């Protein structure tokens, strides 16, 4: 379960190429929304703009790298294991890796000197 990809791995209905290109298409569609593009191009804060453009550049590299990988580089097997075979028995009973010792301390009471701290929101990886 320590993965955000297992829903995709579990797919039984679409052929691999259909699934792959459906995902790639969604990625383009989401990134090319006018609102998303406008944000990257015209965000008023230069540092936010810089970071968003950087993420977009990395995303573009990943997109081409994965398409190239799918078409030319990565070999696929037809007799591969199912997800259950590959990953073994469920480990639901072991979800928590440790046991709780003492209760965590109470939060330190904050002294907020400046409540106007701006909280810009963005998507980051």
């Amino acid at each position, binding site marked *: *379960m*320590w*993965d*955000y990809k297992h829903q995709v791995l579990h797919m039984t209905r679409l052929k691999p190429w259909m699934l792959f290109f459906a995902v790639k298409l969604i990625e383009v569609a989401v990134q090319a929304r006018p609102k998303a593009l406008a944000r990257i191009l015209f965000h008023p804060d230069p*540092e936010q703009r*810089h*970071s968003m453009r*950087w993420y977009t*550049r*990395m995303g573009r*590299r*990943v997109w081409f*790298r*994965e398409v190239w990988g799918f078409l030319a580089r990565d070999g696929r097997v037809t007799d591969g294991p199912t997800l259950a075979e590959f990953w*073994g028995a469920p*480990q639901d009973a*072991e*979800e*928590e*890796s*440790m*046991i*709780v*010792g*003492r*209760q*965590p*301390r109470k*939060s*330190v*009471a*904050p*002294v*907020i*000197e*400046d409540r106007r*701290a*701006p*909280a*810009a*929101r*963005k*998507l*980051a*990886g």
Partner: protein
Amino acid sequence: MNIVLINPPHTAIGSRVPDDHLPPLGLLAIGGPLIDSGHQVRLVDAEFGPMPLAALVDEALRGDPDFVLIGHSGSTSAHPTALRIAEMIKARAPEVIVIYGGVFPTYHWRDILAATDVFDFIVRGEGEATVTALVEAIEMRQPVASVAGIAYRDDFGHPVATQPAMTIADLDAYRVGWELIDHRRYSYWGGKRAVVMQFSRGCPHLCNYCGQRGFWTRWRHRDPVKFAKEIAWLHREHGVDLINLADENPTSSKKAWRASSPTIRTRSKRSMSRRIAGRRSSASPRIAR
């Protein structure tokens, strides 16, 4: 003891696509407490280059370490590389004790130990307290079975685990071994000097598809003022300009999170811009300008 930490060269896009590399926080987090327990610790970060495995093994075995510790944040997909490195270390220096830790070995210790004998010990869950206790037990020739939170092969080659470790109650009781890295090598967002930091571990929410909450077991956070002082120190002393937060959900306690910002602002040069980048959908408050 002479200890070498290895950050394997990762094959995944997260490592190979950007030109920047971030410091391996998990390894630095166990490096700090090991140094503080009196050990000699060195980091070999093979992400740069990336380093070929033969060169990595040469570099790791330089100075005849007693222990080689392997771990990687992008844990599952790094396993084949970590395994290869452990095999190469054991082939060249079978007496070196190899310890493996991180997310993947925490859950897959049975499969790993059943398939190979190149990892002497696996540390499950948080590493700070467990690895120092394990190294000390081995150094003092105490039975390792008394160390909670580890797994190994018993005398018959069967994987066994000791009882799970306790979560660390006070995250500020251990420090990150920043001295293990040269900050000038690490960057993000296209050359901005950067580190990964953690304000909190785990998450109070209960999304049923989530594995991260379970790994950290309980949501805990650091003292906001100490955290802020550490950021200010990294900025002042090492020119760090960008903090990549490793938190699942740093703003779970808005109160505690906000408490750190005034300190950061007053303790760092106002002229320098400062960024704290949250992950994925988390809020990323801009702390100071």
